[in-house]
C-alpha cells in the first residue's frame, strides 16, 4: 500500500486517496475544432511510461483536494507531490 504525501495533510495511506490518472492533460480549448483522431487522442491515449510518471491523486477520504504526484511506475517509489497547478518546481517531496 503506497504511502502518499498530500501537500496539505502530509503522509497518509493509499486507502485515503483516489487515483486520477496521468497529470498534465489539458482539455482542448475548442473540442469541436478537433479531428476525430485528435479528440480520441485526448480522450483515450495516455503516455504509460516506464519510469517517472506525473499523475493526479485526490485526498478523497481527507481534505478532498486534488494534487499531483510523481511516481516511478517500475519501483512505485514516489519522488514527490505538489499542489496544482504544476509549475515545474513545486514538489513537496
Amino acid at each position: 500500500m503506497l504511502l502518499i504525501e498530500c501537500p496539505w495533510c502530509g503522509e497518509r495511506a493509499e486507502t485515503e486517496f483516489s487515483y486520477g490518472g496521468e497529470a498534465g492533460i489539458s482539455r482542448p480549448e475548442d473540442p469541436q475544432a478537433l479531428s476525430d483522431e485528435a479528440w480520441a487522442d485526448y480522450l483515450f491515449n495516455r503516455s504509460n511510461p516506464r519510469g517517472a510518471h506525473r499523475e493526479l491523486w485526490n485526498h478523497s477520504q481527507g481534505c478532498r483536494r486534488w494534487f499531483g504526484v510523481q511516481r516511478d511506475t517500475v519501483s512505485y517509489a514516489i519522488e514527490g507531490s505538489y499542489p496544482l497547478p504544476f509549475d515545474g518546481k513545486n514538489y513537496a517531496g
Partner: protein
Amino acid sequence: MQRRRLEKGGRIDRSRPLNFRFDGKALQGFAGDTLASALLANDVQVVGRSFKLRRPRGIVGCGSEEPNAIVQLGDGATAEPNLRATQVELYEGLSARSTRGWPSPDFDLGAVSGLLGRFLGAGFYYKTFMRPQFMWPHYEKILRASAGFGTTPDGPDPDRYEHRNAHCDVLVAGAGPAGLMAALTAAESGARVIIADEQGEFGGSLLGSAVEIDDQPATDWLRETVSRLTSADEVLMLPRSTVFGYHDHNFLTVAERCTDHLPESERGGPRQRLWRVRAKQVVLAQGAFERPLVFCDNDRPGVMLASAVSSYIHRYAVCPGERALVFTNNDSAYRAALDLNAVGARVLVVDSRAAGAGEWGEQATAAGITVLKGHIVTGTAGGKRVSSAKIARWDGDPTKTVDSDISVKCDLLAMSGGWSPAVHLHSQSGGKNRWDEEQHCFVPGERTQAQCSAGAGNGKWSTAECLQDGLDAGRQAVEACGLQAGKLSVPPTSEPETNPPEPLWRVPAEQDPDHCPKQFLDYQNDTSVADIRLAVREGYRNVEHVKRYTALGFGTDQGKLGNINGMAVLAEILGKTIPEVGTTTFRPAYTPVSLGVLAGESVGDLYEPVRKTAIHDWHEAAGAPMEIVGQWHRPHYFPRASEDLHQAVERECLAVRKGVGVMDASTLGKIDVRGPDAVTFLERIYTHDVGRMKVGRCAYGILLGEDGMVMDDGVMARLGEQHFYLTTTTGGAAAVLAWLESWLQTEWPELKVYLTSLTDHCSTIAVAGPNSREVLQNLGCSVDLAPEHFPFMSVRPAELTGLTVQLFRVSFSGELAFEINIDSRHALSMWERVMTAGKSFGITPYGTETMHVLRAEKGFIIVGQDTDGSVTPVDLGMNWLLSKDKDFIGKRSLSRPDCLRENRKQLVGLRSFDGRTVLPEGTQLLDRPDTTAPAPMCGHITSSYMSPVLGHPIALALLAGGRARRGESVYAALPAREPLAVEVVSPPFYDPQGERQHV
C-alpha cells in the same frame, strides 16, 4: 505413556501434563509441546496419507514447512482445516483430526490407489477425468472427498478478530539469533522497534540446538536478550505473529494468533489480530528451510529433516528414533547426529561427500559415531515406518545408476540436503534473488525497498555469523532512520567451522530415474522426479508451467520444502543452471492466514456503513421491508395486513395515480453550488442551457462523461443569480460531487465556485398525485400553489405549518407533485404532519418499487439501470437536452463515428402481445424467434414491471436501431421457453403528452 519422551531436558514443563486427542485417541503431552512433538513423544508415526497416492506419511519438519502433519481442529462453526501440527501449540483438551486418510490414516481404504501409482503421473487429472465431460461433476465429487483436505466451517465464525495499525522505525521479522540481535541493536539505539516471530517462544534455532553463547547455554543468552527487549521503552514484541505480507512502501501485514494456544475455557478477547505495520526500515530474519534429499521412497514415516530431529530432542525432549541413520550432503546434519548420540540413539552417518565434514566430522568420530563418506542412501523399506535403508558407495556422478551394497536397519532417517534461505518476504518486497554458487542456494540480492536480510535468511549459517549479521543489519537500519547506533558487540560462540555443502539434487538410484521407486520432491502433492521428467517430455519448460502441471509447491507449505529441489531437478533435465530456470513467484501470504483475521471487525453490522434517512424509524414502524441502495436503506414498499410485494405496489401505484401518495426521497444526492462563476461552470458540466434558467425555475439535467456517455441525472434548481441547487441519483451523489470538484480543481481553478454536499443535511418528502396540492394547502403553505403562480418545474422558499422549507414542483411520477426539502432535523416531524394533512385524502406512503413502476410508466430512465456507461443521451432520445449554443463535457464525443452509428442500442418501450408476461430484466432480445446457438442478440430489457394503472406489463429496453423499429416485433429469449414476441413501442406508456404533471 510417552514412549519417546526423554527423562530430562527440553523446554517442556513436566509438571503440567496436558490431555489431548488425535483421531479420537486419548494421549498426553506436556505444556510447551506442539501437537507434533506430543505425537512423536507418543510414537504416533502415521499422521496422514498423501494426497494422490495415499501413502502413509509421518512428521517431517518442525515448523511452517511441514507438508504431512496437516490437521483439523474444532467442529461446526469453529472448524479449522489445514493446520500444521508442528505449529499447533498443545493445550488441555485439544482435539485434532488428521485431514487425510479414510477411515483413518493408519488404515486407509484409498491406499489401493497407491498400487495404481504408475498410472497417476503428472497432469493425471487433466488427462483422466476430463472425458466424457458430462461425468466431471461425478469425478469431482469423488476426488474432493478423497483429497480430504479437512472440512470447512459450517456456520458464521463466532470468534472475534481485530485490525490494528502500527508505525515503527524498525520492524524485525523473525526472532532467532539474527533477528534478536538486530532488534536489540535497534532498541538500544533508541529506535521504535517491532519484532515478530511466528512461534510462541522467541529464539528460533537457539531453542533447538546445543550451541553455547558466552560459554553458557544459548538459552541463557536468549533469556537475557528477551528481558532486555522487554524492558526497553519502544519495543513491541509479538510472539505467535507471522509477518506474512510485504507490500509497497514498507507496508507489512502481520497475523497474530492471540488465543489459539489456550484451552477453550481460557480464551477471551480477539482470537487473532492483523497488524498493519508501516516501517521505516525492515530487517528480514526469518531463517532458512532445510531441504530434504531426493532418494527412492524418501517419504516413509520416520524420514525427517535432520534439523527437526535436533529441535525435537532439545526443545521438546523427544527422541524420534532409536536406530538413526543420518544422510547428508553438508555439515549441518552432524548436529543431529551428535544430538541423537548424546541421548542414547545408535547413529550412522552417510555423507555423500568423499571428503566428508571437517571439524564436525571429527567431533562425530570422537563421539563414537560411524561416518560413511562418499556414500548415499538409495532407498528405504518399511510399512508404516521406515525399517531399513539401502546404502551405496558413490563417486559423485549424478547421472549414473549405483549398486547398493549395504542394508541398514533403522527406525529414523534424518536427512539434510542443504539449506534454502527464506527469501519469501524479500521477494514479495520486489527484491531479486541471487544464486550463491558456494552455498548452493538462492540468497537475497538486489533490494527495491528499505529492508535488509540477516542471518540464515541471508545465507549465514553459524550462530556467530547470524549474531554478527543481525548486529550489522540492526545498525544499518537505525542509521538509515537517522539515529546513532549504540555500541553493542557480538558475544563469542562455540561452534566448529563448517565445510561447504556439495550439490546433490537427485540421489542416484539402482534404476534410471523413470523406473526407480518414487523419489518425492513435494510430499503434500506426491510430486516426484519422474513427474517433472514426464512434464518436460510433454513439452513443459517454464518453471511456472511445470509447477502448475505437476502441482509442485501447490500445497499448504507452498513449496517451502520441495521447490528448490524441484527446480534443480528441472534444471538438470533441461541442461540449464538453476538460476537460469529460476524460482516461481513468491506471493503473500507467507503461511496460510485465516479469512477471519483478514476481515477483522468488518463483518456483520460493521461490514459496511448503513445510511438511514431522518424518517427511517417511521418506515420501520410501518413495517416497510428495506431495499439497500448503495449504503442507504430505503423502504421498498409499505405492506398492509397480509399484502405481498405485488399487492402493495399495485395499491400504492393506484393511490398516486388517483389520489395522493408520499415518498421519502431524502437519499437523492444534493449539491449546493454558489459563486460568481456558477453559471459558467454549470454550463460546461450540464448539457442544457443553464444561463437561460430564471431564478425560481428548475430543469432536468444530465451530465456526460467526456466520452459522451450518460453519467448521472437530476434536477437543477436556480435559487439565485449565483446560487444553484443540484440533485443527483442516490448512488451517484458522491461520484458527481467528486466529478465537479475534479474539474474545478484541475482544469478550471480560476472559476469562483463553491460546492457543498447537502445530501445528509437536507431531507426530501415527495407528495405526488392529483390531490397533492390540497394536502399542501392543508399544511398551511405560505406560497400560492395555483399553477399560474407556481408552475411545473419551479421552486419557492415556503413555510409549511410554520417550518421553513424549499418547495419544488417537480415530478418523477408524471402526476401533479411537490417535493418538500427541509432541514433533516425537522424531516420526521414534517413527514408526520404531511400524513396528518393528507389523512382525509387517504394519503399513501409508497416505496422504491412503486417509484420505479410509476417512472417506467412515464418512460423516465434510471441511470445505472436503463443505462450502463455505454449509452449516450441520443440513444435515450434526449436530443432536446443538448444545447447547440455552447460546449459541454462530452459534447465532442457525440459526433464521433461510433456515436453516430445508426444501429446503436436505443431506448424503446416493449409490450408483450399476451398482455400478462412480465419479462425478466436482463432478458436478451432476438430479431427472429430462432434460438439456435449462437442466436444473434439485438438488445436487452432494462426495466420491466406490471403496470397497475394500465393493467398490462411494460418494459424498457435498449434495442439496436430501436427508434426506427416502432411497431415491429422482436423476440424475448426466455429460459426453457419458446421466445416470446413483443412489440416495440414509444417509451411513455402512460399520459404520453405529459398533461397530468402540469395541472
